[in-house]
């Protein structure tokens, strides 16, 4: 016989939160939701309440001296989860403003217990418990009273088999409050404003009995309420089984000649960086990659950061997106966290069973990421690429690369090392004409061409010509002709030079 108690985990109804909590919220746990004003505590509490409460699980929401209850009712109704028809039918508000105003904990406790005994709730929310409590610096006798109050409240609520949430303005950065040791769970919300972008963050500082996800997770508050974006570990987001591609499988790039240069196509599951200066055809190459995938029944997703997509996008992309054959994540937000994009991407990859992902471009991506995250952009990029690799998708990222003829660089993000393959595009001057060349710089664990090929951009897309063995110094931008070798420039497939 197994005598161990099994703790039932409750689904919180907050997208992304259950996975951070390690599978949901332990039933009958005594939890604190803390954070500064405006961090989303009351909204989180309401979202939890409407998700968790039901006919068999009534909820009591105690309001005290904090936000006026009328305002809570008014503003919380703006969220989609708030159903006024459930008030007094499974969800009841109890105002303890009068008791709290006395400053006597025994009266507040009595008020709470009276309401609990009267309605036997399964869920209790107290907003805000700190409004009646002295801070850590208060006289010790009073602080002890406060401590005892919370301890007694915790014991009483747990013995009544109630899952409870105390909401309060308390920052974990301050001196630890004694109640933190009493609570089973401690969720801390915060918000940071840097330059002109605000980022909301959530941290599970404590959760007894289960492995919660450490670290700081970002979240967003929309009309639907909170949506949490779990910080992605390089091993991949929780709950996503990796559908790793078959070993040796290669993906066609959709550009004649390029597959051969890559040694037979891009190995499935690889990340490819396409670096080149403005106008060199990076997006065109990425578009061909996605379109070829669609043609072969390999769904793809385009992650774009274009402010004016209708003007700059290829008609092929429009057509594929319109017909639902291509997934599109185009964000014009400027306060993104990488976890938010990863979450959106993961959801879409799962929904579309996508195998190809294009991120166009890293420059746009960096701009879209909230300034506070830009310092870690490289590290975050590494995490994202790892997550996508874990999902088994093949990723193509474009990177704007200033033409520098004195050194050979592939990315301004130092991201070259974290990709499995690199294609570099460059402008060269030949006979007073601007020509384009490309080369495969790297394909991890695979043979590949090491030749520079001239290419042209036409209505048909990218046309790759042959190598240019009769020129040298191409990467310096000023190639010199070697007359002893055949002086013909590489001929392009359409006969052009």
């Amino acid at each position, binding site marked *: 016989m197994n005598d161990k108690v099994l703790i039932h985990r409750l689904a919180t109804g907050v997208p992304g939160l259950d996975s951070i909590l390690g599978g949901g919220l332990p039933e009958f746990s005594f939890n604190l939701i803390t954070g500064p004003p405006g961090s989303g505590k009351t909204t989180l509490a309401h979202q939890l309440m409407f998700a968790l409460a039901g006919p068999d699980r009534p909820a009591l929401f105690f309001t005290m001296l904090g936000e006026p209850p*009328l305002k809570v*009712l*008014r503003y919380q*109704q703006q969220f989609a989860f708030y159903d*006024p028809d459930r008030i*007094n039918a499974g969800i009841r*508000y*109890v*105002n303890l*403003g009068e008791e709290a105003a006395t400053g006597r904990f025994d009266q507040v406790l009595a008020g709470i217990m009276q309401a609990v005994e009267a309605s036997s709730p399964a869920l209790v929310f107290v907003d805000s418990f700190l409004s009646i409590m002295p801070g850590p610096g208060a006289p010790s006798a009073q602080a002890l009273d406060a401590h005892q109050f919370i301890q007694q409240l915790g014991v009483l609520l747990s013995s009544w088999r109630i899952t409870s949430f105390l909401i309060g303005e308390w920052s974990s950065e301050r001196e630890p409050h004694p109640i933190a040791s009493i609570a089973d769970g401690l969720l801390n919300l915060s918000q940071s404003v840097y330059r002109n972008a605000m980022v909301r963050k959530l941290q599970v500082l404590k959760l007894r009995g289960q492995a919660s996800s450490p670290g700081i997770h970002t979240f967003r508050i929309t009309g639907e309420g909170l949506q949490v974006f779990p910080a992605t570990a390089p091993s991949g987001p929780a709950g996503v089984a990796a559908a790793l591609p078959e070993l040796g499988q290669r993906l066609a790039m959709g550009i004649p000649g390029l597959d051969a240069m890559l040694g037979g196509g891009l190995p499935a599951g690889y990340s490819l960086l396409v670096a080149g200066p403005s106008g060199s055809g990076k997006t065109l190459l990425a578009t061909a990659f996605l379109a070829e995938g669609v043609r072969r029944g390999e769904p793809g997703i385009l992650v774009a950061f274009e402010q004016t997509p209708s003007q700059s996008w290829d008609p092929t992309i429009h057509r594929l997106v319109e017909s639902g054959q291509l997934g599109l994540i185009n964000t014009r937000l400027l306060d993104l966290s990488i976890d938010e994009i990863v979450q959106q991407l993961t959801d879409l990859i799962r929904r579309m069973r996508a195998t190809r992902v294009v991120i166009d471009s890293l420059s746009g991506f960096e701009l879209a990421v909230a300034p506070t995250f830009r310092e870690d952009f490289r590290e975050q990029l590494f995490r994202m690429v790892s997550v996508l690799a874990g999902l088994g998708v093949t990723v193509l990222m474009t990177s704007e690369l200033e033409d520098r003829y004195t050194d050979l660089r592939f990315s301004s993000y130092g991201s070259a090392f974290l990709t499995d393959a690199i294609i570099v595009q460059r402008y060269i001057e030949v006979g007073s004409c601007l020509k384009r060349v490309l080369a495969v710089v790297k394909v991890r664990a695979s043979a590949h061409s090491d030749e520079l090929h001239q290419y042209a951009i036409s209505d048909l897309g990218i046309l790759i010509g042959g190598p240019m063995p009769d020129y040298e110094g191409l990467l310096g931008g000023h190639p010199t002709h070697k007359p002893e070798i055949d002086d013909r420039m590489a001929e392009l497939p359409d006969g052009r030079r």
Partner: protein
Amino acid sequence: MPTNAGSPSPQEAFRSTLARRVGQPPDAWAVAEVSLVLWRRIAAQLAPVIGVRGVDALFGRALHLASREYPWLAQPLADEPRADPMASGCGRLQVRDGTAALEAAMALLGTFTDLLATLIGTTLCERLLAPVAEAEHAS
């Protein structure tokens, strides 16, 4: 305020209660008494949700708004219980002509429910006041 299918809105229920219980022609004392009973029931229903202070604040605002049409509603009597705004407000009804008292009482209730509805929405307002309205409707 719109009416839920099958049951009167709180405002309609309160008007009906007043009309039925204050006699014909209306008696100002009865208007004051029935009004106060109604207000006590409304307060008992709302105070747990929005707090005693919240109810008092809303009542004070409703009284102020209704006094635009019935200025005497805002004029304190010499011996009224100032600590009890609802008793004070209803006390001002009983020294008036019966018909005027009934109109003012209805206006005050209407203003209060409208005010509550503009703050928390009609659905939630009706939801919170439904127990009072249903009790009045059934009695």
